[in-house]
């Protein structure tokens, strides 16, 4: 249960006590709100007293009469606007002229309640305002969470970008100080490691571009009929030199064409990432088996590798940004930690699903399902 503070500024004691009485046991509760609201009424008989209370005990809602003995209600409203107070103001007034209504609205009044009002009129106005306060609070907290996610992403990113720079800088300093003596070949390891780190950084930047593309949206998408078997073939050809190095066999088990309405580039990003992971986390002499089949209204894509596999705890994390499984088996494998998070986001955009099953030291299977009837969500 939350309590909203309502300040009533009115010079008629009867109105003030009436409002207090009506709202004393009043509760607002909606199915979509996770808590009910009740109300605490604070009374002030003049605009000046009202401003004091606004300063000392900020209310959520202000019920404001315009015709007051000292400063007028409209001046209290101007004060709130000037001080940028976060208060929802409702004017209660017996003879609202059009000019006053316009002025009050432009100064931020949310509603008008005519005097005299029935308890029901007051309650329904308060009910609406409560909904608004609740939604505003929700929006604020959601925006904060969004900011938090963004902040975490950026701090991890800065770490990921700084680490290779630090490594390269460190090696350059060692070379400048001639730490291993005067012979250039004694520095080959340092130079090779520096080049490796630069390569890793370039991959990270390319992945970031993919991620930006995914997040900046569907507007730039170019949806056409795409033969997924063709895309798979291209992705495999791109990865083949790497597979040959690792002595990993790439097998495609679909003849095609298997056509889906999609953005070809996005499908390529998905396939490239899945295949390159399947090679990267494989064993020497292993294999990657790629299957694409149309099953009812779903396109099913399966990538099976004979690699190092993962534990259930590792699987849980792999779709998050910058997550890389770190253990003895992955020690010498490089990557940005963004690949699968990009894949997951793309598949979500197509209302698809991705599932993983894996057995440590035997291999992993990535199952992707894309609906063929609503590709453009």
């Amino acid at each position, binding site marked *: 249960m939350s309590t909203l503070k309502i300040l009533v500024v009115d010079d008629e004691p009867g109105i003030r006590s009436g409002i207090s009485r009506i709202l004393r046991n009043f509760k607002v509760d909606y199915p979509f709100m996770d808590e009910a609201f009740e109300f605490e009424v604070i009374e002030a008989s003049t605009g000046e007293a009202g401003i004091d209370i606004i300063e000392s005990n900020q209310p959520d809602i202000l019920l404001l009469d315009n015709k007051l003995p000292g400063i007028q209600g409209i001046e209290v409203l101007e004060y709130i606007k000037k001080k940028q107070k976060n208060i929802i103001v409702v004017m209660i007034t017996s003879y609202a002229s059009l000019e006053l209504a316009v002025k009050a609205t432009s100064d931020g009044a949310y509603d008008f309640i005519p005097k005299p009002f029935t308890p029901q009129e007051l309650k329904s106005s308060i009910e609406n305002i409560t909904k608004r306060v609740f939604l505003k609070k929700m929006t604020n907290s959601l925006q904060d969470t969004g900011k938090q996610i963004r*902040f*975490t992403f*950026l*701090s*991890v990113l*800065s*770490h990921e970008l*700084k*680490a290779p720079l*630090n*490594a390269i800088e*460190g*090696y350059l300093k*060692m070379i400048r100080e001639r*730490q291993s003596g005067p012979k250039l070949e004694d520095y080959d390891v340092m130079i090779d*490691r520096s080049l490796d*780190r630069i390569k890793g950084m370039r991959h990270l930047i390319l992945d970031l571009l993919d991620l930006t593309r995914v997040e900046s949206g569907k507007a730039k998408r170019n949806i056409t009929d795409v033969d997924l078997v063709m895309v798979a073939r291209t992705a495999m050809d791109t990865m083949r030199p790497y597979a040959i190095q690792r002595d990993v066999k790439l097998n495609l088990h679909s003849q095609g064409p298997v056509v889906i309405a999609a953005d070809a580039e996005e499908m390529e990003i998905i396939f490239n990432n899945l295949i390159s992971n399947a090679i990267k986390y494989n064993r020497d002499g292993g294999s990657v088996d790629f299957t694409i089949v149309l099953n009812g209204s779903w396109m099913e894509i399966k990538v099976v590798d004979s690699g190092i596999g993962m534990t259930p705890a590792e699987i849980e994390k792999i779709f998050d940004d910058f997550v890389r499984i*770190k*253990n*003895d088996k992955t*020690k010498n494998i490089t990557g940005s930690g963004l690949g699968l998070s990009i894949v997951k986001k793309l598949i979500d955009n197509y209302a698809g699903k991705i599932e993983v099953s894996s057995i440590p030291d035997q291999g992993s299977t990535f199952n992707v399902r894309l609906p063929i009837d609503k590709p453009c969500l």
Partner: protein
Amino acid sequence: MKPGDITILIVDDDQDYLFQLQAKVHQFGFKTITAESQQEAEKLIEKTKPDLAILDLMMENEDSGFILCYKMKKKYPDVPIIIATGVAAETGINFDINDENNRKWIKADRFLDKGIRKERLKEEIDNLLLKNNS
């Protein structure tokens, strides 16, 4: 103790940083033992007691360094520990490293930036070792 009798444990999952730090510490005249993960380090300290440890913060998990530090202090309360962090923001992920309460819990003797100059690092290590021997 002569520098040559002193063993420093270095733990970092970035093999390049590990290599470079190890080279520096060797230049200071100390012996080193190294590990590339929290897990590996835990195994290492079961049998070996270093005279000082320099730990990376983010390894298998983003707080691996803290956990390793906690476990080391439990096993060897007298071994000074330096936690080396890459960026200030890196520590903002779970909690504030400069917060008194966190420091009490983490129990590291020093928090140093990974970009620290060689001479400063030498000083910090010497101070911690000296304090420990007096």
